[in-house]
Every structure is written in structure tokens, then in C-alpha cells.
């Protein structure tokens, strides 16, 4: 009697919890059985290998983490050869996060991945703040989001999740464009822009100057975005941003998220996802509410 199964696009999840792209890897298989997760999400894969940004790449700040990894990844070829077979062995949904620098590049990346078994969904990362002149431009222009989503919708039958940036005037506008173009679901939020300076050297603490801000500090902002978007669209939301406890996860679900992803908190407590899965189930039982009813159950 597992009360927390969900449908997300064409996928069925045994529970509503996955990991946020870029914050998790197969390394954690040493610690627990990864098939316990509702889904796995890969770090973002690009058409060609990416070395990533110069270090310093991470710095802890006020209740959060700044990162400028710069989408370091081995490229799709190597991903298919090395990582995908490993992921495929794990008995849960696989969401492959991808990024590219043009609509056509995105489409051919999806085409290439579509030839492979073992992939259940694509998360389209149009919101990474760490890749110059790329990625983020997509995420801020509603029309481009529409065109990109439409093109990818024509390209694949697999579940298509568009991951949105919070660094915009109207995230609902962009969300609606993605929905109208045929997205199966949305993921939000990617990191906020943030920065830190060393006052002794007068240098930015990150080599890239500006980084992506994640962790507990961004939770209220993420929650507000999820609530707003949930009220504007009908497709399911995969929510993330600072989730570090069962309580945090529940707030997002009550605000309207169908599923949640744990990001930065993996670094603090690698077993946090499992504790959150159990906690959600316990909440549903002790509050005598089905998971389905819990989604968007906010009382205004």
C-alpha cells in the first residue's frame, strides 16, 4: 500500500522524489540502493564534451551554495558509452538532462539519445546561469522556449520536461509557452544568480564572478515560483530549490508540485532523499490523505 506513486508525463514513479541535475552521481550507489528513488536525473549532457569553468567553482555563502561548474560533462557520445549502461542497470526512471546552444543542436541531441534504450525522459536545461551566451538566453525568452519545446516535441515521444530559470520577470509566461508547445512537465527552479567577494583580495570568490545560488536560502523563492506556476498550468511540476527536509518537500507538494528533487542537500546528507521519501509517506498516512490529494492542497 504505497500511497505515493505518481504519473509524470509518460512515466510512473514509485515515489515522487528524484535528485536535482548536477548534484548527484552514481558514486552514491555505494551508500544506498538508488532504485529506491522515484527517478534519477543525470547532470546536464551537451553535444560535445565540456571542460567546465575555471576554478574556484564553489563557495558556501549565507545559508546557500554558489557554484559555477559550467556544465562540465563528457559529452553525449561518452555518456552513451560509459554512464548510460550504468544508469540503465538501476531499476527506476532515468531523466537525462541536456543542454545545447541552438534549437537544432538540441533536436539532434535528442535524436541521438532517442536511439538509446533506458531513457525515460529528457529534462531540457535552458536555465543554467553558468554558460555564457548559451542556455540562459533560451530560458528568458518565451517565444524561444515555445519554439524549442515544439521542435523537441516533434522529435521525441519520450517525456519532455522543461527546466525553468527563476531569473526572469514572469516565469508563468514562460511556463505557459512551454505547456502550449507540448511539454509533458516543468522542472523549477534552477539556481538564482549570486555572487560573493573576498574583501581582502577584492576578488570575486568564484573565478566566473557570478554563480548559481542554491540551498536553503533559495527555498522561499523557489516555493513562490512553484506556487505561481502551478496556478497557471495543468502539466505536472518537478519542484526543487533548497529542499532539505520532509517539511520542505511537503511545502512544495502542497503548493502544487507533483514531484520534488533534492539538490544541494545531497552534499549535506547523502541519505536525505530516502528520509524524505519515507517522511512523505508517513505524513500521508498520519494525516490520512492520499498523495494525489496532497498535491496542490494549499488552503487560501
Amino acid at each position, binding site marked *: 500500500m504505497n500511497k505515493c506513486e505518481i504519473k509524470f508525463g509518460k512515466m510512473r514513479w514509485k515515489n515522487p522524489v528524484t535528485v536535482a541535475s*548536477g*548534484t*548527484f*552521481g552514481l*558514486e*552514491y550507489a*555505494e*551508500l544506498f540502493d538508488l532504485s529506491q528513488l522515484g527517478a534519477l536525473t543525470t*547532470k546536464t549532457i551537451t553535444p560535445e564534451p565540456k*571542460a*567546465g569553468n575555471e*576554478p*574556484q*567553482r*564553489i*563557495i*558556501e555563502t*549565507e*545559508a*546557500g*551554495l554558489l*557554484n559555477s*561548474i559550467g556544465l*562540465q560533462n563528457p559529452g553525449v557520445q561518452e555518456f552513451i558509452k560509459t554512464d548510460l549502461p550504468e544508469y540503465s542497470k538501476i531499476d527506476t526512471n532515468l531523466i537525462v538532462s541536456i543542454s545545447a546552444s541552438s534549437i537544432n543542436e538540441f533536436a539532434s541531441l535528442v535524436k541521438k539519445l532517442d536511439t538509446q534504450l533506458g531513457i525515460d525522459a529528457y529534462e531540457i536545461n535552458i536555465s543554467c546561469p553558468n554558460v555564457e551566451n548559451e542556455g540562459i538566453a533560451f530560458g528568458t525568452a518565451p517565444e524561444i522556449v515555445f519554439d524549442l519545446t515544439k521542435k523537441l516535441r516533434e522529435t521525441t515521444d519520450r517525456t519532455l520536461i522543461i527546466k525553468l530559470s527563476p531569473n526572469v520577470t514572469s516565469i508563468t509566461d514562460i511556463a505557459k509557452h512551454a505547456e502550449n508547445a507540448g511539454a509533458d512537465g516543468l522542472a523549477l527552479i534552477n539556481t538564482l544568480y549570486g555572487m560573493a567577494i573576498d574583501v581582502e583580495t577584492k576578488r570575486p570568490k568564484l573565478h566566473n564572478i557570478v554563480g548559481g545560488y542554491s*540551498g*536553503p536560502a533559495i527555498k522561499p523563492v523557489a516555493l513562490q515560483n512553484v506556487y505561481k506556476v502551478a496556478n497557471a498550468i495543468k502539466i505536472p511540476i518537478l519542484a526543487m530549490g533548497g529542499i532539505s527536509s520532509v517539511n520542505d518537500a511537503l511545502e512544495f507538494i502542497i503548493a502544487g508540485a507533483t514531484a520534488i528533487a533534492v539538490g*544541494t542537500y*545531497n*552534499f*549535506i*546528507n*547523502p*541519505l536525505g532523499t530516502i528520509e524524505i521519501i519515507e517522511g512523505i509517506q508517513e505524513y500521508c498516512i498520519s494525516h490520512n490523505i492520499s498523495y494525489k490529494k496532497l498535491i496542490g492542497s494549499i488552503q487560501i
Partner: protein
Amino acid sequence: MYFKKIPVLKVESVNDEYFVLRIRDKELTQNIKPGQFFQIKDPDVAIPLLPRPFGVYDIKEDVLSFLIKKVGESTKNLSILEEGHIIQLLGPLGNGFPVAQNKKVLIASGGIGYAPMPYLEQKLKEAGNEVWFYHGGQSSNDVFCDDVQNCTEDGSCGHAGLVTEHIENCFDSMDVDVVYACGPELMLQALSVLCNERNIPIYVSLERIMACGVGACCGCVIKIKENGKVVYKKVCKDGPVFGGAKVIWDE
């Protein structure tokens, strides 16, 4: 690799700046390579968020010890923990030092870089190596053991001067096959140059700010020369020990 919540066995103050943190656990004390480290955090403390990495200082039976220098919030918090307080440990992590067999080896440490060396020394001796151990610090406060060649910059203990200077002198009189080093980067860089000039292999253990500690986040990379190219390597997973000749040092 384990993730465990374990009671503090003891926190022993060494002096104002340093302390030793001990825990007792059967599993965590198995098969640990010298130079490996753990990500440690007091789960009751919300901020700082992230755990902090500490090298393995000593293993006696099922007691695992860390030698820690108080430099900021987390290390200060750890220094005042009471017996029985639950802390979380993730590890062992990293590659650790490759242990030579039946060689003449030199260990060089500076400041808190001493932490992983006694355990390395023990393993090196067990593997039949002849070991010289040089340690340098600013003052007698940074010196931990009389059984090694200590150098202090202010001359308050052992030889006066920089440990690198003493090692340079030794290279002339001794026949060293391998060098193992941990300490400030300027020291590691200087040693790497000395070793390079003499064609002696040197392994250096590096420190970088870490988030995941396991290789998942790509946050802790440094630049390494590999097959003529410069590539990023993760200090937490590909390191913290690297061949000194391959490291591209910060300007």
C-alpha cells in the same frame, strides 16, 4: 564508503589551535589508505551547511582519529563537542597515497599538513621502507611529535628555518627514492621543483573547498597536466594525492 552518524569518543585539545577528534567504529576503521579523508559535520549545526574534509590522522584498533586546526566556524564547532555528541562521517574518500615498498622515502609536512602523515609513516614502515620524516611549522605550536625532524620558522622548536631548506640540504646527503608531502601549496610547489630537478617522484596531498566530497558535483577541480594536455581533476575523487610534477600550481 560509508555514511554514518557516530558518537564522539573524545575531543582532545593539543594546544590553542589544534585538537584531536576521535570516534570508535569497526567498519570505518577497515581498509583505509593513508591520505584518505572523511567529510565530517555536526548535524545539529545548520550553518555552515556543508560538511568539512579531514584526513585520517591515526587508526588504533577501532578508534579513528583526526588532527584538526581551528580556522573557521566548522572547525571551532567541532573542537567543543562533548563525548557522545553525534556527528556524521562520510568516507573514506579519495585515492590516498600510493605506498612504496622497500624504498628510501621522505615525508615532508607543513603546519596542519602533518595530519595525514603519521598514519602514512606507519604504513610505509610496515611496507619495509626506510622513512625520514620532516615537519615544519611557524612555531612550537605547530609541532606535534618529537620523533620527527622538526623545523620552525621562529626557531622555537627543532631546526630554525623553512622545512624546504632543510630538505634541500638532505637531498645532497641522502638517497631518496620517493617523497610524500602535505602542507601549504607554496611548500608543495617548492618541493615539487626540488624533486623534479632530481628526478625524484613526489606525491602531494592537496586541499580544495569541497561540496559533495565524492566526485558528483565537480566543484573541487584543479588543473593537471595529462598526456600533454591540461585537464581538470577532482581533488576529492581523483585526489587529494597527485603527482607533484603534474600539478599546475596557481600563480
